[in-house]
């Protein structure tokens, strides 16, 4: 694991992995969503609105999985000071926020025909909304920390975003168990380890959608990490050159 924390080794790996993940993700997601829209059967109780499952559930898992990964990267940054951990956490924030927002929006669009309402302030929906706000707060905090550090490149060394990323992880089990702890219009989990209450056609379709969106998520995170690294390297070079220039000018004056 420590070996991949070397930026040069990471770049060698990411150079071919980024397009591979993105292309595979686009193919798997595209094929699954086309099948879901045109061929997935209506569900016995919810009818055609159950097709929203294939976009809503992957978005929910990636929103929660994204913060879990961000928290692991934050822990790695705090404990082991891996040079890529802060960059990985910052790269995860935007796609994580997007999938959390998408989960809320598609859930609302599913809730209207299924429950008769767009929104209820129950444990599951509210804790998911809190997750979106946590992502937005993390992005603001990371940007402010990088600006204070003076590099503006997203590779800052401040520990405050990492501590925030770690503390925010408390919301993940709250989201997961909210439907069991409190009364909710939202259904309890249909899938747990080793068992599923879903019909196979929905289960396999959902699995394909989760794989497709996860590949896209991975590709986007790698692309954003490469962008942060490249900006940091360009900033460092320009700063070094400016300092050399200043020294030269100083030497000529003497």
């Amino acid at each position, binding site marked *: 694991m420590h070996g991949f924390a070397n930026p040069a080794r990471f770049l060698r790996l990411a150079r071919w992995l980024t397009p591979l993940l993105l292309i595979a993700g686009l193919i798997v997601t595209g094929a699954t969503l086309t099948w879901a829209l045109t061929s997935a059967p209506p569900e016995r109780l919810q009818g*055609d*609105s159950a097709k929203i499952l294939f976009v809503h559930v992957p978005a929910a898992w990636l929103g929660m999985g994204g913060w879990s990964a961000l928290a692991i990267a934050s822990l790695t940054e705090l404990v082991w000071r891996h040079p890529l951990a802060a960059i990985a956490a910052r790269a995860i924030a935007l796609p994580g926020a997007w999938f959390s927002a998408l989960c809320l929006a*598609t859930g609302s669009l599913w809730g209207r025909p299924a429950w008769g309402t767009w929104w209820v302030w129950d444990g599951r929906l509210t804790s998911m909304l809190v997750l979106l706000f946590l992502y937005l707060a993390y992005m603001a905090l990371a940007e402010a920390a990088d600006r204070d550090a003076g590099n503006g490149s997203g590779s800052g060394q401040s520990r405050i975003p990492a501590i925030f990323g770690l503390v925010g992880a408390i919301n993940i089990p709250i989201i997961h168990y909210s439907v069991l702890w409190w009364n909710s219009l939202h259904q309890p989990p249909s899938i747990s380890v080793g068992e599923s209450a879903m019909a196979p056609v929905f289960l396999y379709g959902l699995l394909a959608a989760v794989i497709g969106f996860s590949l896209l998520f991975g590709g986007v995170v790698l692309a954003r990490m490469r962008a942060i690294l490249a*900006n940091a390297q360009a900033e460092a070079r320009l700063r070094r050159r400016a300092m050399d220039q200043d020294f030269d000018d100083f030497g000529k004056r003497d």
Partner: protein
Amino acid sequence: MREGLDHWPFILASYALTIGGTLLLVAQSWLSMKQAEARRERSRDR
């Protein structure tokens, strides 16, 4: 009693939002990566 709503506008809105937003995210991430790497190369050449 539940209203007899047509489900398809909700389904199509969900899919359009998902596909459009995710493609935008992928394109933005790819382009900012390419721009940043070009900036790094330019800083090396100067």
